[in-house]
């Protein structure tokens, strides 16, 4: 961070800033030099911040009316929907907000994968992001339990039972998680507590995520290091603020479409039936954003190994910066990686699709092939590709591809390669 010499203009500002340099922070955030070639895929960080705040605000208001008790939770949600002023709106924003949050986070993650944003020196940003993603899944899962419908109850039962796969202590852990011998009131009240806590943990991690980002600065579509501030950067405000704001508006249109025109399309009708510990619904399906991992879980015919495979599929992302051996960040200059990238995108979408289908016949076969490919991509293709791939020449600066034939270009490039 380069701008620590900032001094507020007013006497009061200086007095305050000497004691608590909030104004220096504000100045850093507005002047923060940002690569000028950021495209719209870079606007999802801001969109995700919006999603988090939306979830926290709507969640707080819902918590004023929700009752975390096995006998009353379902009714209190119906009370929110029917009696509370705008309760229907707030709950639909919160429920669809979770989906929008995951939609945005998946785009954010796949943007990182395409442009190599996880690579040195941004590994910590990436790992913090993976932890945030894990916490998001935990929060979403526990939030889905709170309405105490059939899907809530059986989803909770199935997911907590994953821990029973652990040898020796598994059953004990599950009993501990439940606070009893089945999912019941003690489970509901602790899930509510944790569901309330996790968003604030995420908020703290987001601060670290952004802090870590502001040390090296943003990656960019060309994926090269830039000197900042320089002709390659623009100040965050107003340039990126306006661009992020515009993208956020577009995102909010999609968001509003779901909230106002299809509020239940991403949910499951069975969750409007109150939890019944005696009857399991015919098809237990998690929310769409967990389907790829659900498919991986079901594709392994062994209980313990299935759970291990599912967890590995997520945790493998944390070591991605070291699995990808290529020094070139952006897929723009990696012709082979670019193809494998899109195969991976298709693979994950296929996993998501078969995760929603019954685990039998052709679906099961597809799920197994897709699972194997998922791990193949990270464990074999990426490490090997770094050594084998012939990458395209990378421009010296962000400005170069735009301005093109600078007379000094060839000479400068020669000089650069000699330094290497």
């Amino acid at each position, binding site marked *: 961070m380069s701008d620590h010499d900032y001094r507020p203009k007013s006497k009061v500002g200086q007095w305050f800033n000497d004691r608590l340099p909030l104004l220096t922070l504000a100045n850093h955030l507005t002047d923060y030099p940002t690569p000028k070639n950021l495209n719209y895929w870079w606007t999802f960080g801001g969109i995700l911040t919006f999603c988090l705040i939306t979830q926290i*605000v*709507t969640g707080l*208001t819902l918590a*004023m*009316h929700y009752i975390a008790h096995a006998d009353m939770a379902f009714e209190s949600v119906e*009370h929110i929907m*029917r*009696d*509370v*002023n*705008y*309760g229907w*709106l*707030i709950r639909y924003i919160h429920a669809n907000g979770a989906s929008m949050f995951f939609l945005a986070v998946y785009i954010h993650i796949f943007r990182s994968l395409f442009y190599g944003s996880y690579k040195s020196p941004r590994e910590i940003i990436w790992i913090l992001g993976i932890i945030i993603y894990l916490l998001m899944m935990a929060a979403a899962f526990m939030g889905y339990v709170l309405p105490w419908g059939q899907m809530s109850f059986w989803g909770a039962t199935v997911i907590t039972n994953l821990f029973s796969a652990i040898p020796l202590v598994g059953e004990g852990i599950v009993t501990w998680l439940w606070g009893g011998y089945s999912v019941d009131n003690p489970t509901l009240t602790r899930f509510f507590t944790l569901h309330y806590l996790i968003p604030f943990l995420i908020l703290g991690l987001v601060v670290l995520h952004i802090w870590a980002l502001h040390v090296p600065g943003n990656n960019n579509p060309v994926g090269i290091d830039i000197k900042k501030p320089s002709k390659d950067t623009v100040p965050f405000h107003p340039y990126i603020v306006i661009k992020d704001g515009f993208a956020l508006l577009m995102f909010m249109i999609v968001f509003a479409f779901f909230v106002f025109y299809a509020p239940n399309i991403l949910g499951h009708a069975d969750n409007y039936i109150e939890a019944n510990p005696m009857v399991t619904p015919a098809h237990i399906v998690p929310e769409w954003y967990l389907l790829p991992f659900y498919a991986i879980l079901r594709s392994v015919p062994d209980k313990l190994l299935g759970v291990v495979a599912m967890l590995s599929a997520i945790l493998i992302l944390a070591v991605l910066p070291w699995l990808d051996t290529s020094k070139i960040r952006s897929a723009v200059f990696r012709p082979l990686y670019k193809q494998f990238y899109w195969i991976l995108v298709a693979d994950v979408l296929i996993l998501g699709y078969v995760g929603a289908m019954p685990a039998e016949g052709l679906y099961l076969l597809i799920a197994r092939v897709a699972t194997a490919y998922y791990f193949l991509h990270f464990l074999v293709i990426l490490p090997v590709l770094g050594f084998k791939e012939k990458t395209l020449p990378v421009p010296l600066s962000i400005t170069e591809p735009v301005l093109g034939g600078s007379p000094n270009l060839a000479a400068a490039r020669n000089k650069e390669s000699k330094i290497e």
Partner: protein
Amino acid sequence: MSEKKTKRRDFLFTATTAVGAVGAAAVVWPMIDQMNPDASVKALASTEVDVSALTPGNTLTVLWRGKPVFIRRRTQEEIDEARKVNMEDLIHPEKDEDRAKNPEWLVMLGVCTHLGCVPLNDKGDYNGWFCPCHGSHYDTSGRIRKGPAPLNMEVPKYEFVNANTIKIG
């Protein structure tokens, strides 16, 4: 840049901000309004009370909207005392005739107008009510006579549905 172009930019800026402010207000309002009484609370807005068992000189306390309502069947003595009071002696001048249309029946919120405690029956210097929290004295019409309360105890909207039933609210 010419004068005209600057004005156009200003217009766009102001218009955008105005639309944004309206949008933000529209989003904020539901978040505020959700804390107002909901439909299930409003549904409890009226209560019917059977007063046939109440004899003169006694008070019935019922709950309406979560607050106590005093229904006092007054004796002739109490009525006379309330009606002969000089208006100039009152902190909050109100005629007893206005507070109790049917002089035998006094219906009012049993909430002290100082800070919301429930005054005690048949206590105080004026044979009416006395609030134990901060020492407000009310007369037999529920009017404040002495102490820190600023107003008489409030008479809610009520009506006799029949000779024995009062509907409050």
